[in-house]
């Protein structure tokens, strides 16, 4: 008898553990798919971010449900890494979220394989209203001529800068809406290093960063990272020059050694060398300003432009993440309504404010400026002025995430002294060409 009870108990435990495997732990609501009896529709919305963002987006979904009775929004919040790992499997398994975030690092991999829905029909029938959005901003959502992504907001690259530190050591820097050249940047770095006896680094290392940094430098040199046909557009010499520049800064102690940079890349925001005052500048999208300012209440954090070429040429690009819809979604219309709500509803915009950058609805963007926090005001002023000189860029072809890995690896090879900048530039360019060729067939 005892044995039987034990066996049934074990059986129950096994069943329970099996059942729990299937559950979606991330879903915030208990609503499963549409309830036929009431005509309710349920859509899934997936994004990446941190706790703070999850709170914001949850309340946006609540507001949307409130204003659109009959539509339930299931939320799938994720961290950045988990988001992409999960999304590739979801899309492969045919259960992609109805509305999903896209980022320049991955969007070509999805769009190029038909995983993003053409949104033009929803613009034409008025479901998604883009009348208050600049054309150049909308164009960032076109992949291969198809409008398949709506920008979440507009942001630009920036140098978040610890003003308190720079002032303390008497370093001069331009105003938020003024440019400085590479020579001026390097000279300021040298002066800062001398003033601090090399105790504090001037800037983080961009040469081990993402493809975006090479794109920016190629544009200064009058090139681009990729051609519209999906080939590599940067020249070997340009990359060699870029890597040499950063090697010199590294050798002089103006930026950190390679091991420190490598570690910094894996650290959470509150542990980064910038946040712990071991470095005065950090190259990130402007919309992240408020996150750093919150971590560093004793310092004044400002935004500076990325340097321009010594001949005055600009490399700045319009950045920002996008929303897209899965072609496999059975509630495309409702997902489009949610994207429209994000873009054009005053309440929604008032919740997310500057979280992703300047809202793309011009009217609402100017309305929210009234009650913004100090760092959000700085950010909006910075981005709006930088936008005047920044321009759209040619998106990456399929294989972008693989190329990104190589950019980091070869940058590090120079950093650790394993390769000369010339050799790394040559090998990186060859490798990147190999990747684009492989994905063309």
């Amino acid at each position: 008898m005892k044995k039987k009870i034990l066996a049934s108990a074990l059986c129950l435990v096994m069943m329970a553990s099996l059942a729990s495997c299937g559950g979606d732990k991330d879903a915030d609501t208990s609503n499963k798919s549409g309830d036929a009896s009431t005509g309710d529709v349920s859509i899934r919305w997936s994004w990446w971010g941190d706790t703070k963002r999850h709170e914001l987006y949850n309340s946006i979904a609540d507001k949307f449900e409130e204003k659109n009775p009959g539509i339930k929004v299931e939320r799938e919040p994720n961290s950045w890494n988990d988001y992409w790992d999960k999304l590739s499997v979801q899309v492969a398994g045919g259960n992609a979220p109805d509305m999903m975030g896209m980022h320049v690092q991955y969007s070509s991999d999805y769009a190029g394989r038909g995983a993003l829905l053409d949104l033009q029909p929803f613009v034409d029938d008025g479901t998604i209203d883009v009348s208050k959005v600049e054309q150049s901003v909308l164009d960032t959502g076109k992949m291969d001529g198809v409008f398949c992504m709506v920008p979440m907001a507009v942001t630009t690259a920036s140098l978040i800068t610890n003003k308190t530190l720079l002032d303390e050591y008497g370093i001069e820097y331009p105003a938020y809406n003024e440019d400085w050249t590479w020579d001026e940047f390097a000279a300021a770095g040298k002066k800062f290093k001398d003033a601090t006896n090399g105790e504090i680094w001037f800037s983080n290392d961009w040469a081990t960063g993402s493809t975006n940094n090479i794109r920016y430098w190629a544009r200064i040199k009058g090139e681009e990272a990729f051609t519209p046909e999906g080939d590599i557009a940067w020249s070997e010499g340009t990359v060699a020059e870029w890597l040499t520049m950063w090697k010199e800064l590294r050798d002089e102690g103006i930026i950190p050694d390679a091991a420190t940079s490598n570690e910094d890349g894996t650290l959470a925001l509150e542990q980064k060398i910038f946040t712990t005052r071991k470095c005065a500048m950090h190259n990130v999208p402007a919309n992240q300003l408020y996150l750093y300012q919150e971590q560093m209440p004793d310092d004044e954090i400002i935004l500076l432009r990325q340097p321009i070429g010594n001949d005055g040429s600009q490399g700045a690009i319009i950045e920002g993440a996008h929303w897209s819809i899965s072609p496999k979604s059975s509630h495309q219309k409702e997902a489009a309504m949610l994207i429209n709500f994000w873009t054009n509803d005053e309440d929604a915009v008032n919740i997310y404010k500057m979280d992703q950058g300047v809202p793309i609805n011009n009217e609402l963007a100017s309305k929210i400026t009234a009650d913004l926090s100090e760092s959000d005001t700085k950010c909006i002023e910075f981005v709006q002025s930088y936008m005047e000189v920044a321009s759209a860029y040619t998106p990456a072809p399929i294989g972008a995430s693989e190329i990104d890995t190589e950019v980091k690896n070869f940058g590090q090879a120079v950093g650790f002294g394993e390769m000369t900048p010339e050799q790394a530039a040559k090998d990186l360019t060859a490798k990147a060409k190999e990747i684009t060729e492989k994905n063309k067939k």
Partner: protein
Amino acid sequence: MKLSRKARSGIAGYLFLTPWLLGLLAFTAIPMIASLYFSFTDYDMLTDPVWSGINNYKALFADPKFRSSLVVTFKFVFISVPLQLAFALFIAVILKQDRRGAKIYRAIYYLPSLFGGSVAVAILWKELFNKEGVFNQILGVFGIEGINWIATPSTALNTLIVLAVWQFGASMVIFLSSLKQIPQDYYEAATIDGASKPKQFFSITLPLLTPMVFFNVVMQIINAFQSFTSAYIVSGGTGGPMDSTLFYSLYLYTKGFRQFSMGYASAMAWILLLIIGVVTALLFASAKKWVYYD
């Protein structure tokens, strides 16, 4: 319909097995067959697989990263497993004596293995071997300035090996139980014959333990070939710096889930299966020479 008692208990048996059988089918057998098929296709997960014959396998052998990830993995396996087992045996011999509190010590030494390949322990490791980590602070006491162990290409893999060696508990428990089964009379006879303690260890203990050593070697090698979590967490998913911790399984994962080359990743998985199969077969073949069953 009335079933015989025997038939009924047979059905009951299968019913109890069902959860496991379903698990085997759904999570092991079917995925394995699918991956074998995918390994012969060009499959990006988003569009349908296209048959490509042995192209993936050809590409693999021309891929320098495939080779470097193999080198990293082999280094990891053939350094960490012997070290781990030697350490486990050493501690097991010490803990064998039934001193006061021996049980508590056994539990304590087993603890690291409970954490297993967990994420938490990998994060802890990262903090230990940082530039500002505990390890460097200890070095600092002796006036040595440490480097950033996990972010320097030449030392990153070693920190992961130390992590693997530290989790020696499972092998230790197995050694401990078989140590206790060695009859005490052997040692008594050896002592009377005048054999020293080390002599006793190498001539009595070790030969009698070889079946367990063999078992542990096989299990740990299979495990070590598939290591993933520690490298993934410590390197932030990149296998960096400069691919120095790009384990085979981490590269496979990157190819499949990050770079949309699931066909390629599937081919990698089958090559790994083959490698593990060959290594295990070699071990079994060698067993005749050094494993003693009394």
